[in-house]
């Protein structure tokens, strides 16, 4: 158990190194000079296929008419004026048994035949489609000097206003009063960011007051960078203001949205005096309705070194599990009630019990979640 924080730390560090060496997507203007080229794939202009010259309109191409016997046909009394050939499908016509030898076309009046609706293209005769022209049907206008002036007028730098790229948010995820088995107090957890889509400055703070005394309070200031659509890598410092004498830590972490929408963060800390610690927090939102939201949360903390003077044993120090039910009167303002259970483990529990404290506590909480 005592080794796990080290493993976590090394994994995080490796992740961080990888992240920092990743290309600076969308942040650098210079690095994208070649994008136009990858997007452009020239395709050869199709060579014009020859048009069949003098092809009769209904030339069946590959049909062999040589066996046709037209001899018995009598067209004498046919009135072709009402013929509608538009639905003719020559593709499936079998002309091979036709006998045309007795056809008498003498009295046929073809003058009124309207073949204009015949769609020869759809007949499947294998007649090649007319090739696309290589010159535009509507000529491209020749460019004049005036055109050039109008096309590329001088433009001031910054003439285009852009929506701001730097944004910020401050979330007070928990601002609550608690009522436990062994006392009452207040607690908070807040996070905020300032920055763009990729690079952000993160602030995180957590703390607790008990019976009018601040038991714990910390502030983290971190640089965060998106390394994938869902994960940010963070590096920075954490300052503990309580308990006892304050301590400064170097912090390395990841945070993001895990599959199935678990809000996740894991941070390793290297503190003064060589202590190594880690915190993992997972949060979920279960929608009872679109405004009534149940938020389960689990937070676990670990230490690598035994520090009796600070009440920390090595290994798993503490697990906190909470269940908060909030109602979003608006997206920005949601009061909640909930229950939270906290339990210390191993030597940590022993140290605290020796100091007259309890190693576990169950608390009712009531508070608000707000953001700006």
């Amino acid at each position, binding site marked *: 158990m005592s080794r796990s924080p080290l493993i976590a730390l090394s994994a995080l560090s490796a992740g961080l190194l990888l992240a920092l060496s990743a290309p600076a997507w969308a942040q650098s203007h210079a690095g994208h000079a070649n994008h136009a080229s990858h997007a452009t794939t020239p395709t050869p202009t199709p060579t014009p296929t020859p048009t069949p010259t003098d092809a009769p309109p209904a030339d069946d191409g590959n049909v062999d008419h040589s066996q046709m016997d037209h001899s018995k046909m009598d067209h004498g009394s046919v009135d072709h004026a009402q013929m509608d050939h538009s639905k003719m499908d020559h593709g499936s016509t079998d002309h091979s048994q036709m006998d045309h030898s007795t056809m008498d076309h003498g009295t046929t009046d073809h003058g009124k035949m309207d073949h204009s609706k015949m769609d020869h293209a759809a007949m499947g005769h294998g007649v090649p489609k007319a090739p696309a022209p290589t010159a*535009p049907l*509507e000529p491209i206008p020749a460019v004049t000097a005036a055109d050039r002036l109008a096309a590329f007028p001088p433009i001031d730098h910054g003439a285009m*206003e852009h*929506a701001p790229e730097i944004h910020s*948010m401050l979330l007070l995820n928990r601002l609550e009063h608690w009522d436990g088995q062994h006392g009452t107090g207040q607690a908070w957890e807040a996070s905020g960011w300032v920055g763009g889509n990729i690079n952000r400055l993160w602030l995180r703070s957590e703390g607790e007051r008990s019976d009018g005394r601040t038991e714990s309070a910390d502030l983290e200031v971190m640089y965060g960078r998106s390394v994938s659509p869902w994960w940010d890598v963070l590096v920075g410092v954490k300052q503990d203001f309580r308990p006892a004498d304050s301590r400064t830590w170097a912090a390395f972490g990841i945070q993001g949205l895990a599959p*199935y929408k678990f809000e996740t963060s894991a941070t390793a800390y290297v503190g003064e005096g060589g202590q190594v610690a880690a915190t993992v927090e997972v949060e979920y939102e279960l929608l009872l309705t679109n405004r009534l939201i149940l938020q389960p949360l689990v937070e676990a903390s670990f230490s690598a070194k035994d520090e009796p003077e600070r009440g920390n044993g090595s290994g798993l120090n503490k697990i906190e599990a909470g269940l908060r039910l909030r109602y979003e009167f608006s997206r920005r303002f949601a009061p909640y009630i909930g229950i939270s259970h906290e339990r210390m483990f191993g030597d940590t529990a022993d140290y605290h019990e020796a100091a007259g404290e309890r190693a576990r506590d169950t608390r009712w909480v009531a508070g608000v979640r707000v953001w700006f």
Partner: protein
Amino acid sequence: MSFPKTPGTGTPPMPSRRLFVQGVAAGGVVAGLAATGLSPRAFAAAGPGLVGAPQVLSSQDVQLSIGESLANFTGRTRPAITVNGSLPAPILRWREGQTVNIRVANTLRGHPTSIHWHGLLLPANMDGVPGLSFNGIAPGEAYQYRFTLKQSGTYWYHSHSMFQEQAGLYGALIIDPLEPAPYHFDREHVILLSDWTDLDPGALFRRMKKLAEYDNYYKRTLPDFLRDVRRDGWAAATADRGMWGRMRMTPTDISDINAHTYTYLLNGTAPAGNWTGLFRRGEKVLLRFINGGSMTYFDVRIPGLKMTVVAADGQYIHPVSIDEFRIAPAETFDVIVEPSGQDAYTIFCQDMGRTGYAAGTLAVRHGLQAPIPERDARPLLTMSDMGHDMGHASNAMAGHDMKGMEGGCGASMGHGAHGADPKAPRHPASETGNPLVDMQSMATEPKLDDPGIGLRDNGRDVLTYGAMRSLFDDPDGREPGREVELHLTGHMEKFSWSFDGIPFASAEPLRLNYGERMRIVLVNDTMMQHPIHLHGVWSDLENADGEFHLRKHTIDMPPGTRRTYRVRADALGRWAYHCHLLYHMEAGMMREVRIEE
């Protein structure tokens, strides 16, 4: 209607939800702001704007003055940006072949402005995009637009500066043809749809960057899950939730901003205002629909009437008779109706997410109203909508192993495995591992015959791109000499939008050679729908066989689609190319297209 004594400080309590959707009856522009500050001029004299009687300017020489006014659509008086004091801006009515002179003066305090003539073919320095066509119009200054009208039809104009379009700077632009139209009509009305917010549009953008899902009060809940378990069984319900959960997405994300923020307007009138267009029995009435909304797709129908669509984006099509159409932001459709048998008909325009509606009335006289239909059931996105239906199963949610979608929904899958599938797009390298790309499509199609999300099998004839065909053959005729493929990309949660994962600020211009005929291939790698508008030249949509099909200026791209269109690069200059969802454009879904010799 009540006005606070000091506008801007007096904030009445939040209007009720119903009022918010329906707006106030006499809503509209209530007053211009005096140049000296926020003290309004006499409200009583100003009256409730120009409701129902849009100003029409048809001179070849037009003066437009852009300024700030007060408007009240929801019970709250808020600042709006108006043209000549009206919202929507005046209707401009010209004739094909005319050369028009428009002097646009900026009376805004401290903000530059601009006007873009959407869909018009004109020299680049008249196109009105600050930073590409000109320097914009500084406060207190004016810009002289002058161009010759080379086309006819229904168009519109709007600001291309920041979020001014959202604040009210949009209006209809009608160009009468030289040759008579190939259809008959006795009367016409412009129907300009839009979305209004009481929020400052800049603040709304910042809100989207903090919490993009702010308006999605339709997410699936635990009770929904239990219902699905009872209906579909445990395995199917958990497989479905699991897949969306692995993607970290929600199938109710139909639109980013909906009626929780917007009040929808028809000709600048909220539903409660009942905008009315008159007709006489037996008349053929031409309705010129324009979607001037910043972020809203409207699904339009007139219960009791068939509509014959005769033009799209100002260009004639083979007439097609339908019951309903979806109109993307920036699109225009001309439809002919023949009302008879009823004294009043409701023009019902619900938003794609079914959260609200714009509505007006066609009637034989003022003061009539037909029933307003119920909104349709809210649609849920399917895996096919998301471009994830790979044809392995009719229901991709069941039985398909979606483990690969972990880690950015296929972003890490390595699409080599799908190389044999003709529907599987090849994604640009710039998308791979890109934190700004939260998903990629795995199977895309043109879907030209698909009525779209929430319109399938609804018992009505719904317009599709496939059903519309230009009345003319390809005016250029050439085969495209080359092809450029661009993917629409984004990250829902970061509210970051881009082409190929590269936001506008970091992107190089797309260069076209003057005179060339080329093909643009668009692939939608997001779960949202995007209307893509290329300035300066036509976008000639191709059918599934790659043939000329429909001439447009704005090509709608539903999720899971791959659509192609031809561009004839006959307009020299620097042109904007962007998603016409205003906040997507401002968040980076834009490119410069540079046509050079």
